[in-house]
């Protein structure tokens, strides 16, 4: 009875987390920097640019943006004017890359160059008629379609999705707060799902509802992917998979969270740090954290080697973790 709990031969081996095809070794210290020189508060989101650099957004106004190479070496740091730095999306516009920063405190979205020069500001969407003041608008994320259209999710505000053309003119507004399928509680993250080029859709997380909702580019609700026990932050598409940092798990307790990985059929196939995914009658068994690797993962960035970079919220100012795919 006690024999199975004795130390195994694997006790001193490198830990491997995840399930099935998506398993990883862990480098907890990947993003560590001199805390006085380059401090972070919440590490909110990460993206990779065309040069392969990993760009981190934090709400610490000493350096809102920290740019690393893939080994974790710091290459650049900028940004002092984004106190509510939250959402970070990179978009290539005819060979030049731009960042879209969704700022919770400024109640607006700011488009910058990779060097931090402000190109455009998208203020609160007064023209929609849904907002009485800018405080009702707390954007959390942006997504840019191939035609340049911009979608903003107001995940901490009024739960609308605001759709602009590439010039910043309002085209549409959909979503809003509520329990109905096309409405949201915490429309936290958004992305364009172009895995099927003939059927490009918008994916939006309803984090509090543990659901990933699918909409047409015109804002019509299609369906929902249920991920019970997974408080998913933002969907990230890489090849045929969707990766989602999962900030809380189980009953939403403090200190929980894991990473969710869905395959091309939108089935949860791996949950590094979480319970073994299993479907019973096509319904996912409720998920929970099983290993204390992560503390409130907020975003995941996938590089060309399919290694993952994990940024965490409210985790005592810790720097991003890297997962190496095995």
């Amino acid at each position, binding site marked *: 009875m006690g024999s199975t709990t004795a130390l195994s031969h694997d006790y001193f081996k490198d830990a491997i987390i995840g399930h099935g095809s998506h398993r990883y070794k862990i480098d907890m210290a990947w993003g560590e920097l001199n805390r006085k020189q380059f401090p972070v508060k919440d590490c909110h989101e990460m993206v990779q640019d065309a040069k392969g650099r990993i760009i981190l957004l934090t709400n610490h106004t000493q350096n809102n943006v920290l740019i690393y190479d893939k080994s974790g070496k710091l290459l650049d740091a900028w940004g002092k004017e984004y106190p509510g730095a939250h959402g970070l999306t990179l978009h290539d516009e005819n060979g030049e890359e731009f960042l879209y920063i969704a700022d919770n405190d400024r109640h607006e979205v700011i488009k910058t160059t990779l060097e931090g020069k402000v190109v455009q500001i998208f203020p609160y969407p007064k023209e929609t008629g849904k907002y009485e003041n800018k405080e009702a608008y707390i954007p959390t994320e942006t997504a840019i379609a191939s035609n340049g259209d911009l979608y903003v999710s107001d995940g901490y505000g009024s739960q609308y999705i605001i759709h602009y053309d590439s010039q910043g003119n309002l085209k549409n507004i959909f979503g809003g707060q509520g329990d109905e399928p096309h409405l949201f509680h915490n429309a936290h993250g958004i992305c364009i799902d172009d895995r099927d080029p003939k059927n490009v859709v918008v994916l939006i997380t309803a984090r509090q509802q543990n659901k990933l909702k699918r909409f047409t580019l015109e804002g019509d609700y299609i369906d929902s992917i249920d991920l019970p026990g997974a408080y998913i932050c933002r969907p990230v598409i890489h090849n045929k998979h969707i990766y989602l940092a999962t900030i809380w798990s189980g009953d939403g307790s403090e*200190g929980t969270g894991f990473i969710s990985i869905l395959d091309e059929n939108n089935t949860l196939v791996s949950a590094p740090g979480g319970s073994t995914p299993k479907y019973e009658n096509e319904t996912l068994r409720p998920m929970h954290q*099983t290993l204390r690797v992560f503390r409130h993962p907020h975003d995941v960035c996938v590089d060309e080697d399919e290694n993952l970079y994990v940024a965490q919220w409210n985790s005592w100012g810790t720097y991003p973790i890297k997962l190496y795919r095995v």
Partner: protein
Amino acid sequence: MAYRKNIGVAFFWCVIFMCLGTRVTSQSKQVTYLTNSSLKLAAPIIQVDSLLFKNSALAKVLLRQDGAELRYTLDGSEVSVGSPIYESPLELDKTTQLRAKAFHPDYQPSETISLTTRQIQKDLRTAEIQIQPKPSETYSASGAKTLIDGQKGSPNFRQGNFWLGFQASKISVALNFEQPKEIKKVVVSVLNDQDSWIFLPQKLMVSASGKTLGSVTLDGCHEKQTKHGDFLEIAIIPDAYSELTLKIAPMEGIPEWHAGKGTTPWTFIDEILIE
């Protein structure tokens, strides 16, 4: 001589710069992977069909991690590698503190998780109950009777009609029984959800006919605690009582470390029991 010395100095600096240069370009960080030995299991989850029960409650313990072994105790003692292994749901037919912990050959054991399921010993549904002041309109459930209906809420206080919420410096609950009841303990089921500005009360006192029968002071109510429900027990002088008054005193103000510092905390109660 001076010329040769300068050449020597220049050569020296060249070597230094070359070394520095090499160091900068090869500065990629060394990867140290986390080992199994420094990885810790998360605490198992305990699910019960009812935290309050008349006959019995069914408790499940789970952690869906390959190779993890779940062990438990039912007497409040610490869970060790020698404790029984959890294999199937546990039927609990008396007030029980269930403690559980996960073990794994490769990883560090989890923290211990603990949950108390409580048997209702005396049905209070026919008692008269009055509360001063009234609960907040938003969190008034089905009124004062909610506290003696034998129904317990989950820590998700917005769900269902279970919780009464107060933002008051003192709460007084008067209970009148149809017939005198033998009582030695009063149990108050409360909520701690500090993110929602809900704290455990600081002091609870039970009296009858103006005489204090027992009280309890919670020293830990100022401290940071994760969201959980709690049963607070007040032992009283055992006797037969036809009426009891429970006085609940929240902290004077929310502690300094919290965003709501200085303001009156919320107090949430979903049930009062006597034993």
